[in-house]
């Protein structure tokens, strides 16, 4: 019998969750789709972009950032699906019982899983966005866009885009941990990310109510979109809110923190 009474450590639990994440096919496919979508849509926009007039430098940089981040609108859905699946898959298969038997305090396992998913999504997101930005840069001058690769604001938007994807994955992860069912978790997360903003837009369009527009700015996808927008100086109606990128980050982070806190309490309390 082994006498070494080595207790679980957070490092060990992190390693365990990393093994779990990389040993599932769904992870590989989700990340591959994210990379392909980001690079593919970037190329598509770079190849089809036309401008009749010479654009100012700011606007040119804005187009370049848009090329690199265009895929986020779609890859966020994949990030959301992956985020929900990593936890609902454990509930669905019964794996969660093995997980909680190994880490009976539960919270470290849930936190480590979230951390691993968040970091992996961030890295994959950043790599795909940066690859898109770099490989499309030589194509753009032919359509009158001259990207400045040394522009800090553009790189901040790239990092912001990757951070957005990571936070969306975590948002969905928390929802999955609360709902514990793959179909329900994914549907709820996509509803929050995709459907709710559209509903508010329709309400705002029909009633011309400023409150509906302003409320929409605090939804995860709208607020988070500020994280990867290039400062353009575009004008908006005076009553409509515009969040700064850091404010967008805070709003999205708040969504994640609140939902993750709820998930943690429920996970601790509920029978597995």
């Amino acid at each position: 019998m082994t006498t070494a009474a080595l207790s679980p450590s957070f490092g060990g639990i992190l390693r365990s969750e990393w093994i779990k994440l990389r040993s599932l096919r769904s992870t590989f496919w989700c990340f591959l789709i994210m990379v392909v979508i980001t690079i593919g849509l970037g190329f598509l926009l770079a190849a089809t972009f036309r401008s009749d007039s010479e654009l100012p430098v700011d606007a040119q940089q804005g187009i370049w950032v848009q090329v690199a981040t265009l895929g986020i609108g779609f890859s966020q859905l994949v990030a959301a699906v992956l985020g929900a699946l990593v936890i609902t898959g454990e509930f669905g298969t019964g794996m969660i019982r093995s997980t909680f038997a190994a880490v009976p305090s539960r919270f470290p396992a849930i936190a480590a899983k979230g951390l691993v998913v968040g970091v992996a999504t961030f890295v994959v997101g950043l790599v795909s966005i940066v690859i898109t930005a770099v490989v499309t840069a030589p194509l753009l001058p032919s359509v009158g866009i001259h990207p400045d690769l040394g522009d800090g604001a553009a790189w901040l938007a790239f990092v912001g885009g990757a951070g957005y994807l990571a936070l969306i994955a975590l948002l969905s992860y928390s929802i999955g941990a609360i709902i514990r069912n793959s179909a329900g978790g994914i549907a709820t997360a996509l509803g929050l990310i995709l459907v709710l903003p559209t509903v508010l837009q329709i309400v705002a369009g029909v009633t011309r109510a400023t409150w509906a527009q302003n409320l929409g700015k605090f939804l995860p996808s709208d607020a988070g979109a500020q994280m990867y927008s290039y400062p353009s100086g575009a004008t908006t109606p005076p009553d409509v809110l515009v969040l700064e990128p850091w404010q967008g980050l805070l709003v999205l982070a708040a969504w994640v923190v609140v939902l993750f806190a709820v998930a943690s309490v429920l996970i601790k309390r509920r029978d597995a």
Partner: protein
Amino acid sequence: MIEARTLTKRYGAKTAVDSVDFTVRPGMVTGFLGPNGAGKSTTMRLIVGLDRPSAGSVTVNGVPYAKLEAPLREVGVLLDAKAVHTGRTAENHLLALAATHRIPRSRVHEVIALTGLESVARKRVGGFSLGMGQRLGIAAALLGDPATLILDEPVNGLDPEGVIWVRTLARHLAGQGRTVFLSSHLMSEMAQTADHIIVLGRGKVIADAPVAEILALASGDAVRVRTPEPERLGGLLTEQQATVTSTEPGLLVVSGLAAARIGELAAGAGVVLHELTPSAATLEEAYLSLTQDEVEYHAGGEAA
């Protein structure tokens, strides 16, 4: 050592485990026996902290499971064979569990070899048979080389060779001084493996004794009667103060009446008999008589 004190679990209005007290001691195999739905699995989940007790407490080595320093190194648990993500390979499943407690890769390969999973270790668990799933669950339970093993229905789905393997393994582990607690709904299985048996029926402990003592409960003669009209004959016999149980359609196990008397009664009523065998009650029958009032789901008919 596992100690349950007035351990209770309610799900809504239903009481799955009803103020249960028992002690599972080291150095022997303790069988946890009861019909399906008796509360065995719930009790085991309560022991390892997956479910919270509604009342009472249960400890492993004097400590609630959740408070153990290194749970996997102290308690190995097989809850159900499929507490595994079906999309992952057996090896990765074990590596992930091992990583939490910094259990080395070499130990993972040891338990894979010990449970005979080498050829399928790199296959996805989703394609495993029930028996392979059981072996993987047992491999996971053995990972931390724990002094306490809790195995819920470990022989379920195993082929005869696998059943003997589990039996030998359980005896071997207990022989090393470990606490081995395993559940089954089959008395015959328990009789061959366990030193001590705790019988659970409808969430209550209805017997807690050494195997020999449980066997003694099987004293008293019984008669096996096979008939195409079990309901009618069962009714007749019950009127004569006999105890009638049924383990399969058409088969009655009767105690309290001699075989000759049963034959006369049947002949008098014109009931055809296909078999009439006096026998000392088997363990299975003793178990049935122990739990017959505590079974939640009867097979139906008067015979039950």
